C-alpha cells in the first residue's frame, strides 16, 4: 500500500464523495466552531431558504471576537460600549436559540476564544475535520486534526449540510530538528518559520510540522505553532498525535471515556505519516539555532531575531511603506525602542502556560511607567486557573490590567485598542496596519518578550529577565 501522510489519512477518512476533474470533494466536517462575527449572514441565509442546522450536536458556539473584556460589560452591570457589537451578541444568542445550538454565552464558565475552548473542552480531537469562520482554526491541527478557516458562505454550507466542497490541497512538511534553547519559545519558532517561508510560502498547502523539536513541545506550544500557519499562507497546519496529545485530552469533558477512550486511542495512534510518505515540499529548520524573534513590519513575515537590526532594503517601495507606517528606519536596532502598550493574549498565546511565562518575568517587578499592559486570558477556565495559581495576582501587583477572556486587543473591534502611533509588543498573530487600532504599530513576540518589554518600557531581550 502506498505510504500516506497524516493529512492524506484524515482527508480520505472524510470524503463523502471524492473529488473529480469536474467537482471538488464533498468533505464531511466533524466539528463546526462558530462565533458572533462570521455567522449572522449564514444564519440569515438558512432562514431565507427555510433550512435547519443539520447537526447542532456537532456545532460549538461561543462569543469572543467583538465581545468586551471589561468584567462590568461582560456580566451586564453596564451596557456593552460598542453598540454594534452588543447587537451582534444579541443576534448570536437569538440564532443559537432558534436553530437549537448550545451557546457558551457571556455569563458561561466555559466561554472563551473559540480556538482555546475547543481543545480545553476536549472537543478538538485527533483525526477530526474541524472548521470555523476564522483563519486561526489551524490551531486545532496541533492535535492531528485537519482544521481550517472558512468564509461565511461556507459556514452556511456546514450549518445546512455538515459538509464542504473542497479541492485537495498540497502538502508541505516542515521538519524541525534540534531543540529550542532557553527563552526561545514556540512563538519564536513559528515566527522564524514564517520568516523563512514567507507570508505566502504555504499557500494552497497543508503544513505538517514534524521532527524532534516539535515532538518535544507541549500541547499549548503545539497550538501556538499551528495557530499561525495561516500567517505563512497555509489554511491548515498539523502535528501527529502522540502521548503528549493523549495525556492532554484524557478526562476532558468532551473526550471519550472508558472503552470508547481505548478505541479512540487505537484509532488515533494510526494517525501518523507513514515512513516513505511523500510531501509536495519539505523545509528543514534547526531549532537549536533560533533566538527570540520580533516583527518590525506590517506582516508576520517581516521578522528578525531580537538582537538584529531592522533590515534595510532601500530600493523596495513596499518595504519602505511598511517601515514608514511603523516609524522605523532600516538598520535601526529594535532593542531599546520605547513601547507604550503590551498585550498578552489572543488565540496564539493566551493559554495557561503563556500566562505562566509572562508571570515568570513580571513576578516581583513592575510594569514600567508610561506602559499600559493588558493581560487577557484565552478562556474563562484559563482565567480561573490563573487566578487559582496566583498568576492574576502577579499581573495586577505589577500594574497590569487583568480581564475577562476574548480576542481583545488582537483584533481591535471590541473596545480594546492601541492608539494611533503607539508601539505595542503583542503576543497576538498579526501586525497588519491598523490591526490593533487605526495607526497602531504592532511588534509581535512571545509572552516572555512581551513581559520583558512591559518591565523595561522598551523592547528588551527576555534572556536578561529569566533564570
Amino acid at each position, binding site marked *: 500500500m502506498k505510504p500516506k501522510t497524516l493529512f492524506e489519512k484524515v482527508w480520505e477518512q472524510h470524503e463523502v464523495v471524492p473529488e473529480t476533474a469536474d467537482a471538488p470533494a464533498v468533505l464531511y466536517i466533524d466539528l463546526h466552531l462558530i462565533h458572533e462575527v462570521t455567522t449572522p449572514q449564514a444564519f*440569515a441565509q438558512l432562514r431565507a*431558504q427555510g433550512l435547519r442546522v443539520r447537526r447542532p450536536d456537532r456545532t460549538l458556539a461561543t462569543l469572543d471576537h467583538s465581545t468586551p473584556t471589561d468584567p462590568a460589560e461582560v456580566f451586564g452591570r453596564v451596557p456593552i460600549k460598542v453598540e454594534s457589537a452588543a447587537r451582534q451578541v444579541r443576534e448570536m444568542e437569538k440564532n443559537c436559540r432558534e436553530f437549537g445550538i448550545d451557546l457558551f454565552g457571556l455569563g458561561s464558565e466555559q466561554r472563551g476564544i473559540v480556538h482555546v475552548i475547543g481543545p480545553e473542552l476536549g472537543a478538538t480531537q485527533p483525526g477530526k475535520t474541524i472548521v470555523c469562520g476564522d483563519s486561526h482554526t489551524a490551531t486545532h491541527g496541533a492535535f492531528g486534526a485537519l482544521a481550517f478557516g472558512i468564509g461565511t458562505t461556507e459556514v452556511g454550507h456546514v450549518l*445546512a449540510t455538515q459538509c464542504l466542497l473542497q479541492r485537495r490541497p498540497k502538502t508541505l512538511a516542515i521538519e524541525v530538528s534540534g531543540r529550542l534553547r532557553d527563552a526561545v519559545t514556540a512563538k519564536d519558532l513559528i515566527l522564524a518559520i514564517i520568516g523563512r517561508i514567507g507570508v505566502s510560502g504555504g499557500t494552497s498547502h497543508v503544513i505538517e510540522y514534524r521532527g524532534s523539536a516539535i515532538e518535544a513541545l507541549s500541547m499549548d506550544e503545539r497550538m501556538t505553532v499551528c495557530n499561525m500557519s495561516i500567517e505563512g499562507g497555509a489554511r491548515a497546519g498539523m502535528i501527529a498525535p502522540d502521548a503528549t496529545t493523549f495525556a492532554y485530552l484524557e478526562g476532558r469533558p468532551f473526550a471519550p471515556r472508558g472503552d470508547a477512550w481505548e478505541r479512540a486511542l487505537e484509532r488515533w495512534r494510526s494517525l501518523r505519516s507513514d515512513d516513505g510518505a511523500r510531501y509536495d515540499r519539505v523545509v528543514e529548520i534547526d531549532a537549536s539555532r533560533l533566538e527570540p524573534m520580533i516583527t518590525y513590519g506590517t506582516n508576520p513575515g517581516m521578522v528578525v531575531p531580537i538582537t538584529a537590526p531592522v533590515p534595510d532594503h532601500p530600493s523596495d517601495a513596499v518595504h519602505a511603506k511598511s517601515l514608514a507606517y511603523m516609524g522605523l528606519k532600516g538598520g535601526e536596532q529594535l532593542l531599546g525602542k520605547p513601547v507604550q502598550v503590551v498585550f498578552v493574549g489572543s488565540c496564539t498565546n493566551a493559554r495557561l502556560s503563556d500566562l505562566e511565562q509572562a508571570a515568570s518575568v513580571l513576578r516581583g517587578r513592575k510594569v514600567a511607567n508610561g506602559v499600559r499592559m493588558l493581560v487577557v486570558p484565552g478562556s474563562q477556565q484559563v482565567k480561573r486557573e490563573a487566578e487559582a495559581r496566583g498568576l492574576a495576582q502577579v499581573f495586577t501587583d505589577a500594574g497590569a490590567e487583568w480581564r475577562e477572556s476574548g480576542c481583545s486587543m488582537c483584533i481591535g473591534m471590541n473596545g480594546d485598542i492601541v492608539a494611533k502611533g503607539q508601539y505595542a509588543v503583542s503576543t497576538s498573530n498579526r501586525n497588519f496596519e491598523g490591526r490593533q487600532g487605526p495607526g497602531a504599530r504592532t511588534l509581535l513576540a512571545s509572552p516572555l518578550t512581551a513581559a520583558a518589554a512591559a518591565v523595561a518600557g522598551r523592547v528588551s531581550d527576555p534572556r536578561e529577565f529569566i533564570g
Partner: protein
Amino acid sequence: MQPISTFNSRTVVLPYTNIDTDQIIPARFLTTTTKEGLGKQAFADWRYDASGAPKPDFVLNRPEAAGCSILVAGRNFGCGSSREHAPWALLDCGFRAVVSTEIADIFRSNSLKNGLLPIVVDEQTHAWLLAHPGAALTVDLQASTLTLPDGTAVEFPIEAFARYCLLNGIDELGFLLQQAEAIARYEQTHA
C-alpha cells in the same frame, strides 16, 4: 447569483504586495450582521483621513477610478483573516475581478462564492498591468481569458466547478443539499 460571462473594464492598480483583508475591510466594521453597504468602508484606513474625509491621492478616490470593475494588486492579495466581508466590500465598491500573481486561499474561495473573480496571471502580464493603470481589459469567463488592450488573450486558471457555478448562476449550497443521501450514508457508517 447572476450568471457571469464576459465583461469589459478599465483597471485600478494597487501595486502593493501582501494586501491583507484587514486593509480591504478593517475589523471594526465587522460588527455588522448583514452583507450590504460595506463598500464605503473598503480600504478605509488608506482611503480616508482621521476625520473621515477622502484622501485625494488614494487611487480609489481619484476620478479615473469611477466605474472601474477590475482591481490589479501586488502578489498575495487577500492574505490574513477569513472575513468574507472582504469580497463583499469589494463587490459593493463595484469590483468584479481582482488580478494578481498570487491570491490567498481563503479570500479566493470566498470571492468565487460571491461572483468576484480571482484572476491569477503570470509575472510578465502582471508587470505590464501594474505599469499601465487604467488599461481597458476584457474578462471572458467561458474562455477563462483576460484580454489585454493589444488583443493578447491571457488564460487564467479557475477551478472547474466554481467556473461552472459562476457561468450558470448556480449556488453551491444547492449542489451540496442534493448530496443529502450520500451524507446520511456517511453519517451512518462513521458514527
